[in-house]
């Protein structure tokens, strides 16, 4: 999220340079991706939904700088006016829904100060009507959506799930086929928009719009996420719904947006606030000893209290510690450990002294495989081989040249390219590719090995993964297997286990159970004219 610095100054009294602000935030609060004179860009985190708003950032800056925020709660926007009819089929999916009818608007260019705020935030100006909703979203984190009031039939809003195969044309001009998990905003006639994701074309605000129905709601984050993903629609609003919103903040934002539309000449003529707006604050017990034990320091009680107070937490001390009430905007605070983190970061991680850890009686783990791998690697190196590591995939070249049966391979459902579509079930074909590559860079002697995993599919279960040891040898002779056999012999493998694959891939006579010269027909497909011998065994079963 890009935070406009001049805007932030309107909301909190801090006295840091942009760079200082960025440094403090990254040490105490959240990572910073970019900083310049106009804005700082924060790293998105998936817990701190409150930092997707200027007000949230202002509160955080106030807490870490010991300064004051310059805003408070606004009065409830409810007024004694007619209501817009709102019907919500499933309140779980739209726990609160607010709508305001604003008339007498005139579409105009936004003021320069609005345009600057939007530009700092990375958003282009459209016109005053649309810009207001974006400005409110940026400052409060609460998305808003304006429907053209004239295009909503009977001024009636129904929030319901889509029917199977229902279709809608969204604002981007695309026709979309809906599924029953999509949540819709509709009137009695048709669809006005995909809730929280994108409006419908037919209810779009245009240059001639003078009446809007303005929506501010909280929708089920999972529903919004599914609709976004299914339709490939990712927006700033959708992101905020997914990070969850709060009722108190919604009411503040709604009161403010109505006020701003009023400044623009708009007249509020109807308003509905549907749903239960009462917040249910959580109380979390913070135990003083546990806090210090988890941090590994002795933080004075008053510092714990001031850290939490600065962040807006209500703190009541008791014998063992405190009863803590997180502020309504901190939905990420759920358990005691979350409070421990809050105290630790505000107290300062730099003040925590290191403490050695004694770990004597841990449950033993079987170390035979890792030890075996390491000692075998060492042995192969000492014999004069070079260790390579290749991908766990077969390249499309390997699959084609070896004419592999794809059905017997583990297949990736969403490969990045054809080079990551199938997992290897042998290592040696990948070593042939390495031999080829290095022949092309003028190596005339190639003795390489890899120890790694191969994968073969299993019904109703994870694939079978096994460690293999594989060697490839191109020693510029017409008969590399004789040297390869000597190498294998020196490894003293007690019970070599595993196969090499389809016999057609190998020399008709120069092969044993676990080693073979690769058939020149195969090598020719890689444009290798030298003879190459390979070896491969199952590590665990062989040694």
């Amino acid at each position, binding site marked *: 999220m890009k935070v406009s610095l001049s805007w932030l100054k309107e909301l909190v009294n801090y006295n840091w340079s942009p760079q200082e602000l960025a440094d403090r935030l990254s040490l105490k609060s959240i990572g910073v991706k970019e900083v310049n004179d106009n804005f700082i860009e924060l790293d998105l985190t998936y817990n701190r939904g409150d930092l997707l708003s200027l007000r949230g950032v202002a509160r955080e800056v106030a807490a870490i700088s010991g300064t004051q925020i310059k805003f408070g709660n606004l009065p409830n926007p409810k007024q004694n006016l007619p209501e817009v009819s709102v019907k919500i089929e499933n309140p779980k999916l739209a726990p609160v829904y607010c709508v305001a009818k604003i008339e007498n608007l005139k579409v105009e260019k936004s003021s320069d100060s609005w345009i600057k705020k939007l530009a700092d935030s990375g958003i282009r100006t459209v016109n005053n009507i649309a810009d207001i909703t974006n400005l409110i979203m940026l400052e409060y984190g609460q998305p808003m959506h304006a429907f053209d009031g004239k295009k909503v039939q009977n001024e009636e809003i129904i929030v319901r799930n889509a029917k199977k195969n229902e279709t809608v044309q969204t604002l981007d001009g695309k026709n979309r086929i809906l599924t029953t998990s999509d949540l819709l905003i509709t009137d009695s006639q048709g669809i006005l928009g995909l809730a929280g994701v994108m409006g419908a074309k037919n209810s779009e605000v245009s240059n001639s719009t003078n009446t809007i129905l303005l929506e501010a709601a909280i929708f089920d984050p999972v529903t919004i996420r599914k609709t976004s993903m299914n339709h490939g629609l990712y927006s700033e609003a959708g992101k905020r719904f997914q990070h969850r919103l709060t009722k108190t903040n919604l009411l503040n934002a709604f009161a403010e947006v109505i006020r701003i539309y009023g400044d623009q000449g708009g007249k509020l003529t109807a308003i509905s606030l549907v749903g239960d707006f009462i917040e249910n604050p959580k109380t979390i017990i913070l135990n003083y000893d546990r806090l210090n034990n988890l941090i590994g320091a002795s933080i004075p009680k008053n510092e714990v209290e001031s850290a939490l107070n600065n962040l807006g937490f209500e703190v009541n001390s008791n014998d063992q510690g405190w009863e803590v009430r997180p502020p309504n905007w901190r939905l990420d605070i759920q358990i005691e450990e979350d409070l421990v983190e809050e105290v630790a970061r505000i107290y300062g991680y730099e003040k925590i002294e290191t403490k050695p850890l004694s770990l004597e009686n841990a449950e033993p783990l079987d170390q035979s495989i890792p030890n075996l791998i390491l000692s075998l690697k060492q042995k*192969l190196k000492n014999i004069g081989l070079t260790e390579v590591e290749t991908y766990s995939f077969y390249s499309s070249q390997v699959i084609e040249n070896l004419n592999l049966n794809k059905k017997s391979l583990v297949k990736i459902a969403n490969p990045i390219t054809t080079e990551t579509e199938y997992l290897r079930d042998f290592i040696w074909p990948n070593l042939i590719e390495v031999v080829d590559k290095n022949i092309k860079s003028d190596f005339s002697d190639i003795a390489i090995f890899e120890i790694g995993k191969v994968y073969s599919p299993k019904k109703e279960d994870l694939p079978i993964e096994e460690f293999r040891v594989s060697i490839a040898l191109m020693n510029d002779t017409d008969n590399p297997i004789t040297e390869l056999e000597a190498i294998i012999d020196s490894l003293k493998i007690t019970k070599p286990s595993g196969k090499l694959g389809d016999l057609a891939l190998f020399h008709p006579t120069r092969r044993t159970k676990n080693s073979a010269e690769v058939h020149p027909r195969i090598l020719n497909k890689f444009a290798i004219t030298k003879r190459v011998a390979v070896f491969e065994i199952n590590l665990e079963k062989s040694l």
Partner: protein
Amino acid sequence: MREELSQIIQTYLAKIKQAKTQNELGEIYLELFGKNGEITKIPKQFPQLSIEEKKIIAPLFTRTKLELEKAVEESKEKILEEGYKKLNLEKLDPKGQIKKRQGHLHPSTQFKKEIVDLFQKLGFQEIFAPHVEWDKYNFEDLNIPKDHPSRDMWDTLYVDTSRLEIDPGSMLLRTHTSNFWPRLMSKGKTPICAMSFDRCFRYEAVDARHAHTFNQFEIAIVGEKGKFISMANLKYLSDYLLKGILGKEAKSRFRPKYYPFVEPGVGIDCLCVFCHGKGCKICSGIGWFEIAGAGLIHPNVLSATGIDPKEHNGLAWGFGPDRMLMLKHSIEDIRYFLEGDLKFLQSY
């Protein structure tokens, strides 16, 4: 010109058929398609032809060219296949001598050895977990529920399970080595003191700094009943590793960072060993570079694996050794690690 073409085709088809070796065939190919080859010469005469003539000659030329190319290809295959028949005459000879060569371990193996040795001294033991994993062990048990936006932190490669009678989306290539925690923890034996240095996968377009296949090193500790593991312990382990691999002056600092499987969660910066904190190109002028992620294991992770978070807690620390190796040895392209370039591998 039409005659000329039919002359070429008659002469050369016969010649191609009679070729017995790749060398002979190569010579014939040059006679036809070389710089002054019979076929190469033909189009040079096209400008002298009338439009009418060209309409007839040009397609004829193309057909002739293709026919000859095909014949060369077929003859090549035939000669090769003849050669392959002779393979039956070769035999499996007794084993020979091993040539003297300088062996090399992959830089990742050397680095792994260094790190594993360091942590073995503290009592850590190595563990492997599957590369192909259930969603449960890679995500759900690690406090990353389905449909949670934090899933976007990992671009995941999923296994096509349509032939396996398994729900789509439930099997994937692990995105981190952390799948070993729930696998180990759910065995119900504590304390745990384990480490893993192994391969992980992400859906990532490959370039000099990004790889879809990479290594992760990770430790996880679950303490004895009633004995706390702290952030101060975590700091000790961070400094221990950084000093161990980068030298005595290395030191770590914590920054708040969100990972769903730890709480508190921290990003770990290392004091830039190149400029000693003054700020240089490698640390982008900051004096520190981000190296690892860590934290105290989230109580939800412990609960998911059947460990009571009231009685036990733990810590975890993980980082990408490939990046660290690149810094250590000024390696500019991450692809060097898995693409088998011997010039690169034999310089270590």
